[in-house]
């Protein structure tokens, strides 16, 4: 099984530059990249088929080629604000292999002719800040960062920047607002960050996992990466498997692996002798699917065809003892809490959904509230300022579609006229 991101990740002391260099051909990709023209590196990444691993799945090389021509300085902002419920893959990379990320950031910066990069880490990753700072220091000492890196004439500074607790800052434009010292509110797109990003300059925002793939592609060539996966979904993906499984964990799987194999072969199957009931394949922002869809291959196209999305790669598994409504309520409560309040449909809609779902969960809901929920979702979808609104809608609509009986079970015990919260 090809391991690109998690190869030897549990090697003791891998956070030290010596161990990284010895174990993983660390920083060897730089020499190869510097022998190429920056545009050739972009072409190589395009040819590899790598797509953004943060959630949107946009082709990475193509994103890079959208940078405003000949406008400098440009910036790189690594998105290490991992906050999508169910997702914990970047945390493992950051705490166990920080140099892989630094090497990836250097490669991206060289290809995009960027001389300053920021690694925006969520504030709760406080324990890993010192790991990253130490790794950056080592990279400067070895001459992989700073002026005239390895005699190439290329200069690059990378700084670590800590957030302070806000899910929305994982949205790229909100992250840039936050990095500029503002409230982390999203910005209108276009202009996209590649044209007008950090400090109004062209900026590439890439996820930790995306950047960590680059050393492999540069060392082994685009074809070696493209040989893994399916026709359109290339390479491997880190999948965070959580919930009712025997061995929850982050697993690196070739794209196209059937979901049932990820649950059973990697994560040990459903625990306590129960059966699979439902799963969310790509983090809390994507539609929930029933067990009957477990044979779907884990790749961008197959999941879309099945009515969901690959998202950030968080596979949340629920067994048949679960009432889906209580989990959807929890997710909705999250979106209500994290809505930045900038736009009305999201700010008000998430609150209404939470209120109605709470009533249903407390068995004081009314059957017609299911239609009302759908109506609210309809008034939010594609009408919010940023994707958070759409994200809040997806679990509600899909759970009513696939698990209506769970709602009806709670609505069936309705006692008319009873006030909310008295059961």
């Amino acid at each position: 099984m090809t391991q690109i991101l998690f190869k030897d990740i549990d090697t003791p002391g891998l956070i030290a530059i010596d161990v990284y260099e010895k174990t993983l051909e660390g920083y060897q990709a730089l020499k190869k990249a510097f022998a190429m023209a920056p545009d050739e590196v972009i072409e190589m990444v395009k040819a590899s088929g790598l797509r953004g691993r943060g959630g949107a799945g946009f082709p990475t090389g193509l994103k890079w080629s959208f940078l405003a021509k000949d406008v400098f300085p440009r910036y790189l902002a690594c998105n290490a604000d991992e906050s999508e419920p169910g997702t914990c893959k970047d945390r493992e990379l950051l705490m166990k292999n920080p140099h892989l990320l630094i090497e990836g950031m250097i490669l991206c910066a060289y290809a995009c002719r960027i001389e300053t990069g920021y690694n925006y880490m969520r504030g709760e990753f406080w324990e890993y800040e010192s790991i990253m700072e130490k790794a950056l220091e080592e990279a400067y000492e070895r001459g992989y960062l700073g002026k005239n890196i390895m005699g190439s004439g290329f200069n690059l500074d990378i700084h670590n920047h800590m957030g302070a607790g806000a899910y929305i800052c994982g949205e790229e434009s909100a992250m840039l607002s936050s990095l500029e010292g503002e409230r982390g509110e999203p910005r209108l797109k276009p202009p996209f960050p590649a044209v007008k990003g950090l400090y109004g300059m062209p900026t590439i925002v890439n996820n930790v996992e995306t950047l960590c793939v680059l050393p492999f592609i540069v060392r082994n060539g685009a074809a070696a990466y493209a040989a893994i996966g399916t026709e359109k979904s290339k390479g491997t993906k880190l999948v965070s498997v959580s919930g009712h499984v025997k061995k929850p964990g982050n697993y690196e799987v070739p794209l196209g692996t059937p979901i049932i194999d990820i649950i059973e072969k990697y994560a040990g199957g459903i625990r306590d002798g129960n059966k699979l009931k439902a799963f969310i394949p790509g983090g809390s922002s994507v539609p929930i699917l029933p067990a009957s869809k477990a044979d779907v291959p884990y790749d961008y196209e197959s999941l879309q065809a099945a009515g969901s999305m690959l998202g950030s790669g968080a596979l949340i598994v629920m067994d048949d003892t679960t009432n889906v409504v209580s989990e959807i309520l929890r997710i909705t409560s999250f979106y209500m809490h994290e809505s930045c309040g900038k736009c009305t449909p999201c700010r008000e809609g998430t609150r209404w959904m939470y209120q109605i779902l709470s009533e249903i969960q407390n068995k004081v809901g009314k059957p017609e509230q299911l239609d009302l929920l759908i109506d609210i979702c309809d008034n939010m979808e594609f009408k919010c300022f940023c994707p958070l609104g759409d994200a809040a809608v997806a679990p509600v609509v899909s759970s009513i579609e696939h698990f209506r009986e769970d709602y009806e079970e709670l609505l069936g015990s309705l006692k008319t006229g009873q006030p909310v919260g008295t059961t």
Partner: protein
Amino acid sequence: MFIFTETSETRIKKILAKYPEDRKLSAILPLLTLAQDQEGYVTPEAMIEIGKRLDVSPAYVESVCSFYTMYYTKPVGKYVVKFCINISCHLNGCDNLLEYTEKKLGVKEGETTPDKKFTLLKEECLAACCEAPVMQVNNKYHVNMTPDKVDQVLASCP
């Protein structure tokens, strides 16, 4: 009156050097974090001081500060105990664990113990979902939590 300590001042120099000279406002979150580390929470006086350093009004500092959940604007206990309550932790029994801890500490979520030692909080996803349920004590992760482990962790807080 709020004064950054000498250690903080050394760090502030390093922090400011990360951003372009005319973009020092980028340092607002790191400075708020430093102020909170120093005093336990972000005081109004600290906001005034940070505003002066970054050439913005105290009201602006407050508007930014209030956006981010990791800043406290009121005193908290010596140890802030946070439980993740999001879906993966919920599927793994975080509600029972929170209730257990509430009983053990004799406070409700959002409250501080009378001896000012512990503040108990709910937290949204902490990105350690494969090791649920998860708790943080003063930003340090504790994973695969059980009531016994809660006892151990709390007992290890001097």
